[in-house]
C-alpha cells in the first residue's frame, strides 16, 4: 500500500467521490487557491462550478449547502478551521440537524461539513478549538474524527455517500502524518465501528483524534515495562461504537479516556459515563480522563503544550490505575 499524508487522504476522498457522482460538489473559502492542500487538482478536473469559492459568509453558505442538499445535490463544505463554525451555528443546529426530524422525515440532507482543528501550534484560543463535543449534544448530526490517513480517507468517503449530515473533525496535529492507504476508490470505513489500534489485556485507553498516536506511544512505553495496553479508537463519535469500548473494558478492567477537548462535557466524559453505566462491575480502578483542562489554550507555547494531552500524561494516568 502507498504511504500518503492525512491531507492527501482527504484530497483523494474528495476527488474520487466527485469523479464518481456529479451531484457531489465542494464549497468554501479560498478553495481554488488550495490554501490547505486538500483541493489539489480538483479545480482543474471539476471546474469552478463544483469547486466553489465562497465569500466570508459562513452562515450563508453553510445554509446554502443545506438547501442544495434538500434538492438533491451532495455538498461538501470546507470550513477550514473548526472555530469558524460558530458563525454558522444557526444553520448547523436549527436547519441541518433538525430539518429531517421537524418535517417528519420528508427530507434528507446529505452533506458534509469539514473542519480542521487547528490547535497545538500557537494560534491562540480563538483558532484552536476542538469543539466536537458540543455537536455530540445535538441530535441529527453524525461526527467522524479520524486519527490516521487510512481512517480519514475511508471515513470521509463513507460520509460523502451517507444520506445524513456528517461533520468531519480533522485534527491539524496529524496533517503531515503519513500512513498506508489502499489505492483505488473502494476504500470505505463504516460509521459507528471503532478500531482497536493495539491489543492488550491490562488496561484500555480509549483515545480520540490526535490522542490516538499519543496513546499508542504511551502503550509502547509501558509495554517495555511489561504492561499490555489496549488502544481503542472510536473513529466516529456519532454513532458511537459502545460495544467495542465496553467489551475492551470488560476484558481489561481498567480504562483511561484521552480526549483533546476541554474536560467538562467532553467526549471523554460521555464515554466514561457509558462505561460506568454498562461495565461498572468489570472495573478494578476508577475511570480516568486525560483531557484539556477547562481553561483556554494560551498563545505561549509552553502553556499550550502543558494543557493538551501528552504521552507523559497518559502514561502517568495509566500508572495510577495499573498499580
Amino acid at each position, binding site marked *: 500500500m502507498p504511504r500518503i499524508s492525512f491531507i492527501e487522504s482527504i484530497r483523494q476522498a474528495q476527488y474520487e467521490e466527485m469523479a464518481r457522482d456529479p451531484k457531489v460538489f465542494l464549497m468554501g473559502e479560498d478553495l481554488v487557491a488550495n490554501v490547505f492542500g486538500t483541493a489539489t487538482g480538483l479545480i482543474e478536473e471539476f471546474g469552478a462550478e463544483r469547486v466553489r469559492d465562497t465569500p466570508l459568509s459562513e452562515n450563508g453558505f453553510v*445554509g*446554502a449547502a443545506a438547501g442544495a442538499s*434538500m*434538492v438533491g445535490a451532495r*455538498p461538501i463544505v470546507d470550513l477550514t478551521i473548526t472555530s469558524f463554525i460558530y458563525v454558522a451555528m444557526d444553520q448547523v443546529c436549527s436547519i441541518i440537524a433538525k430539518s429531517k426530524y421537524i*418535517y417528519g422525515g420528508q427530507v434528507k440532507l446529505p452533506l458534509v461539513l469539514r473542519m480542521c482543528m487547528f490547535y497545538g501550534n500557537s494560534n491562540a484560543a480563538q483558532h484552536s478549538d476542538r469543539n466536537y463535543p458540543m455537536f455530540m449534544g445535538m441530535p441529527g448530526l*453524525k461526527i467522524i474524527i479520524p486519527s490516521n490517513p487510512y481512517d480519514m480517507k475511508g471515513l470521509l468517503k463513507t460520509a460523502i455517500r451517507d444520506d*445524513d449530515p456528517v461533520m468531519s473533525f480533522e485534527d491539524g496535529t496529524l496533517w503531515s502524518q503519513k500512513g498506508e492507504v489502499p489505492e483505488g476508490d473502494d476504500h470505505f470505513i463504516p460509521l459507528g465501528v471503532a478500531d482497536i489500534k493495539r491489543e492488550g489485556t491490562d488496561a484500555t485507553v480509549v483515545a480520540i483524534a490526535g490522542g490516538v498516536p499519543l496513546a499508542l506511544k504511551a502503550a509502547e512505553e509501558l509495554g517495555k515495562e511489561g504492561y499490555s495496553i489496549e488502544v481503542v479508537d472510536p473513529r466516529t463519535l456519532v454513532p458511537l461504537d459502545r460495544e467495542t469500548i465496553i467489551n475492551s473494558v470488560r476484558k481489561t478492567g481498567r480504562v483511561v479516556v484521552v480526549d483533546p477537548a476541554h474536560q467538562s462535557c467532553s467526549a471523554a466524559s460521555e464515554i466514561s459515563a457509558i462505561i460506568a453505566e454498562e461495565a461498572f462491575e468489570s472495573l478494578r480502578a476508577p475511570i480516568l480522563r486525560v483531557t484539556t483542562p477547562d481553561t483556554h489554550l494560551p498563545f505561549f507555547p509552553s502553556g499550550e503544550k502543558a494543557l493538551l494531552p501528552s504521552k507523559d500524561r497518559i502514561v502517568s494516568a495509566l500508572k495510577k490505575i495499573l498499580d
Partner: protein
Amino acid sequence: MDNLTLEQYYEGYLRMLRIRKFETRAEENHSKGEIPGALHSSLGQEAAVVGACMALEDDDYMVGTHRSHGHPIGKNADMKPLMAELYARKTGICGGKGGSMHLADFSIGSLGETSIVGSGLPVAVGAALGSNMLGEGKVTLCFFGDGASNEGAFHEALNLAAIWNLPVVFLCENNGWAVTMPASKAVSVENIADRAAAYSMRSELVTDGQDFESVYMATNRAVDAARAGEGPTLVEVKTYRFAEHAANLGRMLVDRGEELEGWLKRDPVEILRIKITEMVGDEIRLKEIESRVDQEIEQALEFAKSSGSPDVADAFDDVYSEKVPDYYNIA
C-alpha cells in the same frame, strides 16, 4: 408580462379563502384547547401569500417561516395533513413532530417552514444553487418578514444570491411588526425593498399588498426574470396581520388601535371578492367556492380529529436515516 385570467382570479380566491377559513377555525379550536402550542396565523396576509405562490409553477421551490399555515395552502397543498399537524396527530404533514410553526409540505415543493427568524433565507439560496447545478431550472420563492430583514442571514443570503446570480425571489411579507417591535423603529430604510440596492439586486415594492393582483404581478416579474437567468429579486409586500402575533400568548401584547382598525377595512379576501363580482356581474361561482372551502375545512378537521397520536417511539425516528438506538430506559 402575463395578465391574470378569470380562472386565475377564481383560483386565487379559492386559495385565499382556504387560508382565511383554515386560520379562523384553527384559532377557534386552539382557544378551546384542542391544539397544543402557539399558533401564528396569516389572517390579513392572504393576498401576499397567494399572490406570490400563484406566480410559481407547481414544481418550483418555496421556503417559509414560523407563520407557516398560509404558505403551503397558498401553494395548493392538501389541508388535511396540515390540520392534522396542528392537532399533533400521526397523520400530520410532519408526523406530529413539527406543529404550527413548521407546516411544510415537501410534496408541493416546500423546503421547510422554519421558526428561527431569518434561517430560511440561506436555505433558499442553496435550493436555487442546487437546482441550477442539477440543471432543473426551478425558481425558489423565499418568504420572510420585516423582522427577518434585520437578521445577518438575510444580508448574507442576498449577497450570495446576487454574486451567484441565482433564481431566487426573496419575498418580504412586511406586516409592520415583529412581535411588539414596529418596522418603523427597527428597519433603517423606509422600504425594505431599498435594501436590494446594497446587493445590486432588482427590487419590487408592492405598496398595496392587500391586492392579490398587485402581489401576483410583481412576483411574476421577479419569477420571469429568475427563470430567464437574470438572477434574484427582492420583493416587498406591504401587508398586515389581523391577529395577535400568536395565539396563546395570554394577553394582547400591543394595542395597535386605529392602525389595526384601518387595515381591517382593507381585507384582502373581501377586496378580491368585490373585484371578481364587479368583473363577472354575479357571485355564483364565488358562492360555489365558498361552500367547497367550507366542506374542505370540515373534512380537514374531521381527518385531524379522527387521527391517532404518534407513539413515544416515533420520537426516535427521522433524526438520522437509521433509528436512534433506544438504550435510554425512559419507561
